[in-house]
């Protein structure tokens, strides 16, 4: 067993801890790992090039940018905020918990690409979350606004990951089934998929509770800010 390629992992860990530019860290790690495994430069370059091409589907979200850019130029984010601000009884917790549930259900049905950070979070969910938060606590300061946005993105990820593959056997389930089949254990995809349900429910409950907790924090933080401002005025 050649343990030297693990140096590539060490490069990644060190690079992220030292907060170097991630792109450079990744390229260096790949080269280190390849050299440590004793690959010659020609093979390593061909491996880098062909893997890069094979993974190009990951950049598909760039196609949404002209639409989103144009609509934002014409005030989409502002409109999204105003629209949400008009709903009575809507809070940040209720809004994001509904989005979480919707995203989980879509993901369970295999519709993972219909929402996402470029498609829905930046143009719609993030400004709407800000507006929903401002309904209950008044204007957000910069730190609060950033935490609301980060939470909107986190909610999208959690809904996507922990809904995936419950009812329809896609990527992950087929990978699991394929692994067992290679090792002589034959399973129906659905028997694997349904066992994702307990975790999906737990994910919804845990994250919804955290959203509630965050809203409480936001209310405390804004009250403290207003109290400070009041004190300054006196």
């Amino acid at each position: 067993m050649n343990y030297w390629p693990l140096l590539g992992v060490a490069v990644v860990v060190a690079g992220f801890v030292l907060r170097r530019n991630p792109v450079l860290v990744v390229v260096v790690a790949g080269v280190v790992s390849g050299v440590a495994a004793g690959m010659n430069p020609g093979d390593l370059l061909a491996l880098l090039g062909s893997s890069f091409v094979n993974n190009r589907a990951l950049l598909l979200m760039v196609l949404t940018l002209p639409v989103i850019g144009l609509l934002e130029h014409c005030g989409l984010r502002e409109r999204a905020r105003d629209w949400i601000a008009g709903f009575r009884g809507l809070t940040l917790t209720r809004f994001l918990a509904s989005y979480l549930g919707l995203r989980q259900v879509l993901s369970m049905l295999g519709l993972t690409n219909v929402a996402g950070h470029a498609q829905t979070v930046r143009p719609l969910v993030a400004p709407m979350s800000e507006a929903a938060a401002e309904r209950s606590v008044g204007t957000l300061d910069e730190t609060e606004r950033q935490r609301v946005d980060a939470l909107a993105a986190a909610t999208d990820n959690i809904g996507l990951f922990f809904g995936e593959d419950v009812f329809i056997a896609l990527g992950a389930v087929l990978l699991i089934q394929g692994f067992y089949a290679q090792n002589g254990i034959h399973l129906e995809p659905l028997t694997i998929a349904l066992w994702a349900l307990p975790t999906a429910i737990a994910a919804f409950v845990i994250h919804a509770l955290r959203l509630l907790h965050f809203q409480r924090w936001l209310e405390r933080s804004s009250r403290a800010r207003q109290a400070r401002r009041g004190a300054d005025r006196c």
Partner: protein
Amino acid sequence: MLKIEYIYWLLGAFLLVAAVLNLRERRRAMAGFWAILACPFLFGDAILAALANGTRWPAQAMGVGVLGLGVMAARGGLRVQADDEAMQAARRDAASRFGNRLFGPALAIPLVTLVLVLAAPYLRWGATPLIEPRQATLVALGLACVVALGAALHVTRAPLATGLSEGRRLLDALGWAALLPMLLATLGSVFAATGVGDAIAAIVGAVIPTDSRLACLLAFALGMVLFTVIMGNAFAAFPVLMAGVGLPLLVLRHGADPAILGSIGMLTGYCGTLLTPMAANFNIVPAVLLELPDQYGVIRAQLPTALALLAVNVALMWWLVFR
């Protein structure tokens, strides 16, 4: 038949437009960056086909391009464009003018994708499916973007050039973060090809006390998380940990239920995905898209949920797999 390749060509063309627009403003480094990135989309199938026929130079040239992108990304910093008050006022003005009609094109992306995915099995010309079945969701997303752009141009009465230059503004703002997901997946392939996974599995297998069910289960669960954090992808971690710990120790030796172990084991890996900058498309790209100053801001927001779910998953496996 509509193949994913056509969607890739469209994407490559947009990257070339971004390169040309940057070149006209004499931002040569940015122009070069997008031009190189256009190559896997414009020539991807040709590169892979040549490699399959034993012609290695196109793939090697792409490899040189990857190294070049890495160096260029490291030299150029991220710039978030200043948003002046005149622009804000103009946007608010436009927002009140267009009103809720702006939502139509934005929602068209998810809705058209949804309809096309559901309809894809029935869209046929004779015996040929109209949408490449293996890549139906990606082709649907690509088509939805085209439809939505048409709708957006119609609603806002803006020329196509505005759409392209606004898209390029967002692309420039993303900068190297746009590239990171592809590069990390590439690194995953390199790690797999150089035997990093086997080395880690060998170490994990050598350290844990194999007689204890709990120790094996914890090694499997934490190994899934750790390996996912390193690789940025639970799919890469699963076969490694399954072959090293899950199958020989938990299933064959301690009689764990394979279906439950596989399913919840994979979801345990997803807890790791929430924690790692290596999963750039989920954790770093949104931080840049939302203009957060802390590039780990999204990970921070996910951390408590991920750790709580990890505990839940371990408990679920402990109760369920050894029944």
